[in-house]
């Protein structure tokens, strides 16, 4: 079974990559979500992530179990950051490895789509003028 982590510490890509890989695997894929300097046309200086941490871990484990049906390996590791992030900080990292590349791409993408669709995390964007507001999100109950 792959592993999931919710952390207030900076995410380091090398650490995440180090959690997957195996002599049987020919493909490794690392996705990093990064705080960018704009959203819907407005400049952004940072994002504060709030999470329902216990459920984030539980939901990530469910998503990972589903992704392993695609991946055919258990070599998958997901980390989501919480707290105050600046532009350029990594908010989420998904690493997978598998014998062939097709399943690596598909499993990585699946995890990211499900994270966006149903992980109980919220973000408040900060703007250069000092204003901040919650980013409008996705209603997770709609099809669950």
């Amino acid at each position, binding site marked *: 079974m792959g592993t999931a982590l919710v952390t207030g510490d900076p995410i380091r890509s090398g650490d995440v990559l180090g959690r997957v890989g195996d002599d049987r695997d020919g493909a490794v894929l690392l996705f990093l979500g990064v705080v960018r300097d704009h959203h819907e046309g407005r400049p952004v200086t940072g994002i504060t992530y709030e*999470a329902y941490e216990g459920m984030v871990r539980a939901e990530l484990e469910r998503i990972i179990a589903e992704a392993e049906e695609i991946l055919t390996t258990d070599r998958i590791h997901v980390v989501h950051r919480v707290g105050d992030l600046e532009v350029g900080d990594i908010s*989420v990292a998904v690493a997978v490895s598998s014998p062939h590349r097709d399943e690596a791409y598909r499993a990585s993408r699946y995890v990211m789509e499900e994270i*966006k669709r149903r992980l109980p995390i*919220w973000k*408040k964007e900060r703007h250069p003028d000092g204003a901040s507001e919650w980013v409008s*999100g996705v*209603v*997770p109950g*709609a099809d669950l």
Partner: protein
Amino acid sequence: MQVRTLLFAQLREASGRSSVEVQLAEGSTVEDLLASLESMIPSLAAVAPATAVAVNQAYAERTSPLADGDEVALIPPVAGG
């Protein structure tokens, strides 16, 4: 029975609290809990239609039954990643 309800993000800010203990009759459902919460915290009513509910850290239907000691969470639209 008593259930603990967690509030997050805009719901937490709008209500000024991150959790609420709610007393419910035996046999109550998620729907009954939401009705009780809306009478306790009127500002919840406006956002309730777009709010998902989790019971014991898994998404639940409005018709799901509740039990004493359940951890319920109101989940406003999510924006992870």
